[in-house]
């Protein structure tokens, strides 16, 4: 193990007469200080864990959570504010698509419910995107979904619902937010409605 040869240069350390006690004390001090820093500062600040309660005292708790709230709290809108409630009846294997024309960063609150489970795909198509390109935000099978949506790009954003069951299903969508048009795609037809800017 100890193979120091002169040609590689004996490894210099601190002076060789350093006492064992001094080394032990130094190591213990390093461990204790490291432990204190971890337990009183890093764990509360980074992991929201506070084993000694010192983090609370120092006001460090919650620091690691604020970063997720760094988004804009208030964002003002120019386009009109609209509320919308629509219902669709879907026979077995029927589907419908309902979308809103939205500007980038505009927001909408939505909530839809159905009388029975449907397959759905909440997605958006950018206004300048390639033909048929869509980005999905939420896909699955459910009887309801609610949430807040901020458009990641300008384009049409909305839902595709399909009834894959054996009975008739009614889908009801309620939204409130900032959009300029509604578009309904059903049986190969598009029903488009341009909304006025005044609510």
């Amino acid at each position: 193990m100890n193979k120091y040869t002169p040609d590689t240069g004996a490894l210099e350390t601190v002076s060789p007469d350093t006492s064992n006690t001094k080394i032990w004390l130094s190591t213990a001090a390093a461990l204790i200080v490291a432990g204190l820093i971890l337990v009183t500062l890093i764990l509360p600040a980074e992991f929201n864990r506070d084993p000694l309660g010192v983090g609370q005292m120092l006001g460090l708790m919650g620091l690691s959570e604020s970063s997720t709230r760094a988004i804009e709290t208030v964002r003002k809108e120019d386009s009109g504010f609209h509320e919308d409630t629509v219902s669709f009846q879907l026979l077995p294997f029927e589907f419908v698509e309902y979308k809103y024309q939205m500007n980038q960063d505009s927001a909408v609150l939505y909530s839809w419910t159905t009388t029975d489970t449907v397959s759905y795909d909440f997605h958006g198509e950018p206004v300048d995107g390639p033909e048929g390109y869509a980005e999905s935000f939420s896909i699955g099978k459910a009887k309801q979904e609610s949430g807040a949506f901020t458009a990641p790009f300008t384009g049409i954003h909305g839902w595709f619902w399909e009834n894959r069951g054996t009975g008739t299903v009614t889908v009801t969508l309620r939204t409130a937010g900032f959009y300029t048009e509604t578009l309904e795609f059903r049986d190969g037809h598009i029903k488009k409605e341009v909304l006025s800017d005044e609510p």
Partner: protein
Amino acid sequence: MAIKYDPPTSSAKQLEWLKFRFWLVASLTLVSVAATAHNISDANADFVQGLEGSAIVPFMYLGAKHMVTGYDHLLYLLGVVFFLRRMKDVLLYVSLFTLGHSITLMIGVLVELSVNAYLIDTIIGLSVAYKAFENINGFKQVFGVQLDARAAVFIFGLFHGLGLATKLQDLSLSAESLVTNMLSFNVGVEMGQAIALAAIVVVLTQWRRHTNFHGHAFIANTMLMCSGFVLAGYQFANYLWA
């Protein structure tokens, strides 16, 4: 070791101390400006993922940035060269470290080795503490045995390389130009290491001129050991809870 110096007058001592402080402050400022983040930032990752094919300069830049801003690698390098007076020794030890981390960086990426980045970073933190304990003569003095320092720097180099591999794998490289991009990243790592090392060696050289260098050295390595433990604890907490 025979220390030979003329007893300095108090003003000469002061000047020396001032000079040392200047270098220390200058280098710490440099390091703290650079060391704001350790993981490859999201924006950088998004950019690289959007690329098709090989991107030599971006990957070299990311490799260098990771090294220059990675305080775990920097602290370990500081520990390694702390007592190396001769450039020959600096080159030997740094080459062993480079060899070690290059091996595992490449193998790790090529065989898509899946290791937990936080556990690897915990070991990297411990490598800092190990080197500092070695520097205060802990292994030889307290335990009477010490792994050859050259072997240790090579072995810990292997672990540092695994850490680099996990960071590079986070970028989900496309298969077609994997080798080019990985080699570019590795070259960048070595360039960043050279830049950081130059700063460290300059500061250490100034520091050694201080008459009480050996007194400082003991305290500095104790602090280094402490930093290593903090890094290891932080990364292990990440492993547990992040």
